[in-house]
């Protein structure tokens, strides 16, 4: 019983971080049909910025977090204009792979050059660095904070995309850009907005998740498969899907490691194959197609 509680709590905490980072990737894939392999690089960029802000400029945690997200969005927006815009759409996948891997390489090289290959740290404020006890289980306060923020993100995103005209117009623009334009929808602006939203979420996750996913230049590649797994299991573009997928994978991974530590990796890949076999379109496939 205790074990189950432990696995559940750790799994949810881990899953929430996966969610925050992956949902941006999912939204972009679902809406713009871009497999953005540089998503991890954007998360990492924010992590580095936050680390720099705190360690070298002495900013407080909250401010560093906000500044890092903002800066990441500002830095990546021109990329949307100059690069991504050329590769939107479902029949450009191969171009997307080439471009976003190239971009990832460049970001890794820059991170390596400016910050060196060692792991960088984002020190937690005292307020978040303790632990709380849940019965016999100790969880770091920071994780509780992450879970809370994750929940807020879910709600906010869902409202934005499913319950506003903005969301409808956005999904229309993605579905058929030429027709959306002909109906007076400014598709370019929408794409820019979604791109900013997506990188913003990556940035948020990159900073919040630095405790789990250590910040070194290879962050950019190391975790992208994991994020993609969340998107695939959840169904591209589905918020609810990302939530369920991230939590499911987080818990599975945690359970595998706890129960069969020596075969943890094996267990995870096998579970992933089974899940995708059973739900080839993800848990929450978008309506019709």
């Amino acid at each position, binding site marked *: 019983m205790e074990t189950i509680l432990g696995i559940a709590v750790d799994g949810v905490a881990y899953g929430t971080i996966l969610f925050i980072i992956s949902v941006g990737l999912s939204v972009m894939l679902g809406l713009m049909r871009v497999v953005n392999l540089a998503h991890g690089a954007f998360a990492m960029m924010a992590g580095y910025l936050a680390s720099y802000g705190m360690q070298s400029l002495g900013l407080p945690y909250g401010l560093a977090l906000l500044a890092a997200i903002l800066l990441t969005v500002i830095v990546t927006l021109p990329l949307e204009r100059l690069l991504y815009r050329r590769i939107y759409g479902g029949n450009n996948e191969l171009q997307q792979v*080439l471009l976003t891997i190239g971009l990832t390489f*460049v970001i890794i090289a820059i991170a390596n050059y400016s910050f060196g290959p060692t792991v960088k740290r984002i020190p937690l404020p005292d307020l978040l660095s303790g632990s709380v006890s849940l019965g016999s289980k100790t969880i770091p306060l920071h994780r509780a904070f992450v879970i809370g923020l994750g929940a807020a993100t879910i709600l906010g995103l869902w409202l934005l995309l499913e319950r506003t005209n903005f969301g409808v117009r956005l999904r229309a623009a993605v579905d058929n850009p030429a027709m959306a334009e002909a109906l007076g929808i400014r598709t370019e602006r929408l794409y820019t907005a979604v791109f900013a939203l997506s990188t913003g979420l990556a940035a948020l996750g990159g900073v919040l998740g630095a405790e789990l996913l250590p910040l070194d230049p290879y962050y950019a590649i190391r975790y992208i*498969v994991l994020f993609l797994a969340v998107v695939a299991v959840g169904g591209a573009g589905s918020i609810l899907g990302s939530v369920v997928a991230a939590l499911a994978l987080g818990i599975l991974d945690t359970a595998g490691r706890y129960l069969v530590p020596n075969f943890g990796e*094996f267990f995870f890949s096998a579970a992933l194959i089974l899940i*995708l076999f059973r739900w080839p379109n993800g848990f929450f496939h978008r309506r019709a197609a």
Partner: protein
Amino acid sequence: MRGDLMRLPAFLENHRARWGSVLGEPAVLPLMIGAGILGYFLFPEDLGLLTRILTMALYILSLDLVLGYAGIATLGHAALFGAGAYAAGIMAVHIVQDPLLLLLIGTLAGGLVALITGALILHAHGLTLLMLTIAVAQLLQSLANKWRELTGGSDGLSGIDPSPVLGLFRFDLYGRTSYLFALVVLIVAYAIARRIVRSPFGLACRGVKEDPLRIAALGGNPRRYLVVMYTVGGAFAGLAGALTTVTTGIVGLDSLGFTLSAEAVVMLVLGGTGRLYGAIIGTVAFMTIHHILAATDPFHWMLFIGLFLIGIVLFAPGGITAVSEKLAQRLARRGT
């Protein structure tokens, strides 16, 4: 009346584009042989690198069959390569050392793994398929890591010492035998691959790639074509893996790794998909550039490779071959 229905200019335009790519084709094989022999004499000290390029080219060629001709999106192609590499390696350590036999074993292993996994996963599409291919490769990789007695685990499988080719040609320090051996294998494999893509089966696969449902409406089972093509690609990838084992004498977990899978896609797209020779050109271009950059600046080559890839997308969207074909066409048009 019918004249109205015919749209002549558009027809001519597309027609020319198609022939542009097909006409260049017959020359590819002699060119490859020529360039291969020339390479042998021009760069006698770089045969190690050149051999790696040849084996990689074979591997990328196998990916082109799968991705370029059947539209199977995969980021786990290394699973098939690694299966061939390990099969050949394990056999070489324990049972046979004849290089040709080892290649055969690798081919069979790659094909078999492709057949089994393909039958399991090819009902999926898009990102799901992509993830399934990744997961299959990861599964095999952790299996290889776990099964240390057989595979050497993370230390790699060493102690592979293939006997001389045909009992005559020893694998030497300078890599001459390796190079010529790899060259012959690549050329033969290329010829076979070309035969396959121009067969009725190849035509049907193109159809499946463009619209699987329509193939079903013609009475074909799209999934069967996919599985068969995946198996064929797997056999070629396994051959490439075995060739790498034979020419380097070691197999590591990296031969099942994500990096190898992802790099393959990069090289193929760089060269241009669905052409076979695009695979060769992409491999040569990527590996040469990589080698030069890594040699001149081992510390920051990633930046330049990254910029290069971005540049390709911006300025040569269909890959190197597509751009050169377009250029050739423009020249040809000016000529006539």
